[in-house]
């Protein structure tokens, strides 16, 4: 472990892109501002110089065309990695993602597949303008055919992106914008992919399990640290992918402990947390020792950044819910 470089999530993503573009000349990057500027977060900085303007392409400002053209590019033999500047902007591309990209293999009865990765930063906590932080991942869960990947750590950011680009099916790869530069961690230098549908227990404790994905995993870790001072030992399970969902890993984590809190950044009602809760009660009802609580965003439109702390899940709310669950 000690000889692995410590990278930020942003650096890990950039490294994975470079590695895949070196490995496979069909891989190309397209999106708004990804070339000359290197992306609004500079994730793709240096790629244009390294791989040239045919493989690193600044496109017009049109999310539907970026995704729709990526499907056509894939059918034509390329492996596009499209960047949509923020997940909240995929509303303008939703019809090209759900009914088109996700269904193309099915509709063509396997004649065509869509080896397309869509990268999109999302999530709050950085006081961004409206639409930039929206956590709308659950909307895509209702679009069978697309996989949904949401790393929370630099090593997973790399391993899951390698896996996404190589996956023959379309992948929505969600990047936690608040974590891009704020955390660092060891990242294996080689070709190590992270398989989809495998959750990761990032902290072990016997009293309660906190289930989350993306940036919310780090809120859970902070809450677990705080609970430890009260003598409560919390596990934290990072789902890593929502589709496919690691049902076996989830149930294994729950059955050992019997108490669960689910945390996510999207509004609570109809969020993916509801799916987690439903799955647990069906598969592990007998092992539950307390009602499952959800800590999520409020069911309001995303407020201005100055008010987002009232909206988003917080360490304080997670601690309160965890305490109530443990004491039940």
């Amino acid at each position, binding site marked *: 472990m000690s000889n692995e470089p410590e990278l930020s999530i942003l650096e890990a993503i950039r490294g994975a892109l470079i590695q895949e573009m070196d490995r496979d000349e069909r891989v*190309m990057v397209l999106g708004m501002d990804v070339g000359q500027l290197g992306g609004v977060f500079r994730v793709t900085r240096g790629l244009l110089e390294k791989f040239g303007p*045919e493989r690193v*392409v600044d*496109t*017009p400002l*049109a999310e*539907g*065309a970026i*995704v*729709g*053209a*990526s*499907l*056509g*590019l*894939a*059918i*034509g*033999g*390329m492996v*596009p990695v499209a960047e949509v500047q923020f997940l909240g902007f995929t509303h*303008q591309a939703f*019809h*090209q993602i759900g*009914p*088109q990209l996700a269904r193309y*293999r*099915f*509709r*063509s*009865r*396997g*004649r*065509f*597949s869509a080896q397309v990765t869509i990268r999109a930063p999302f999530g709050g906590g950085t006081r961004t303008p409206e639409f930039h932080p929206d956590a709308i991942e659950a909307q895509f869960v209702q679009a*069978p*055919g697309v*996989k949904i990947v949401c790393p929370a750590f630099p090593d997973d950011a790399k391993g899951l992106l390698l896996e996404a680009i190589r996956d*023959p*099916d379309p992948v929505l790869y969600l990047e936690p914008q608040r974590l891009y530069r704020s955390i660092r961690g060891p990242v294996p230098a080689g070709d190590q992919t992270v398989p989809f*549908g495998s959750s990761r227990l990032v902290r072990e404790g016997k009293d309660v399990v906190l289930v989350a994905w993306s940036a919310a995993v780090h809120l859970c870790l902070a809450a677990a640290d705080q609970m430890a001072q009260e003598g409560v030992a919390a596990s934290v399970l990072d789902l890593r992918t929502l*589709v*496919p*969902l690691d*049902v*076996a890993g989830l149930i294994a984590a729950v059955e050992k402990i019997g108490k669960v809190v689910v945390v996510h950044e999207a509004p609570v009602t109809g969020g993916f947390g509801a799916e987690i809760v439903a799955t647990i009660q069906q598969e592990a009802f007998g092992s539950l020792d307390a009602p499952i609580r959800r800590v999520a965003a409020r069911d309001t439109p995303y407020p201005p950044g100055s008010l987002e702390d009232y909206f988003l899940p917080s360490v304080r709310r997670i601690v309160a819910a965890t305490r109530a669950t443990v004491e039940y």
Partner: protein
Amino acid sequence: MIELLGVDGKVRGASPMSLDKVVEALRLMLLSRAIDDRLIKLQRMGRVGVYGPVHGQEAAVIGSAMALDPQRDWIVPASREHPAMLRHGLPLKNMFATYMGNFDAAAIPDGVRLLPRQQSIGAQLPHAAGLAWALKLRRAGGVVAVYFGEGASSEGDFHEASNLAGVMRVPLVMLLINNHYAISTPVHRQTAAAELAARAEGYGFPGFVVDGNDLLAVYATTVDAVNRAIDGGGPTLIECRTYRMGFHNTSDNPKEYRDRAEVDEAEQRDPIERVRRFAIREGIWSAEQEAAALDEIRSAIETAQRQVEELPRPGAAAIFEHVYETLPPRLQQQRAEALDDARPS
């Protein structure tokens, strides 16, 4: 408006299409109308869900397809271009399977350069732009021909795809089949512009209006667009002005929104009749040949229909195939449940 073949069957100047190809096109047009008749009949018998006939649009669809090389070029269809798809290599059996509800048998065969029909209006346009972009990046040669209607020209996908295709200068031929109606909505409710082809200028590439009931004009204009695309000249928009002589589909009743007089007038400009007149005038077609062609067509349709009817119906397992390359565990479980549900009790 580009016009070459008059209603009287006389051509302005020399025919741009070889006489062999004229005969091939005429046979396809007759096939198209026979397919319309058969599938409408099957729909009325409850054996086909819904069907949208090509009736009236044969010259636009077939004239453009005749300008393409099935070994080199791709077709990205909307939903009313099956004659072009057949010419490009889709077996008649697969086409019948499409409408008779057997989606596995309807698949585009390997090696045939066609995308599936698109039911979401205009959604195929960005796909076509991307596919043409890939041909350019891979230096594959060839062009992509994409079909869409005047209704689709109001969709955001049309504007986004046109703009991208222009910026990337991709080898794309955009065939706007203006049949004057999107279900009941007339073209003057789609746009305040006098012509849709003029939009191309806004995207930085040429646009042309062509008589869409004129096989030779559609063909010649498409040949020019294909050549320009192959020479690196980028996209072309071709507005084929035609008329939907039939209904939108079998669930539609056009009497509720258009006058019979309008349809009668359109029938005077029937795209097949003028090719027939031209072919007879050139001595390459006769009543006997037509009778023989119709016999062959009838027999081919009978065979295709029977082949589809003889296929086993897809079962519960089919809905789980091709969702992903590898079925995730959750879907494996659902598949097992669905197969269990489907077992006769």
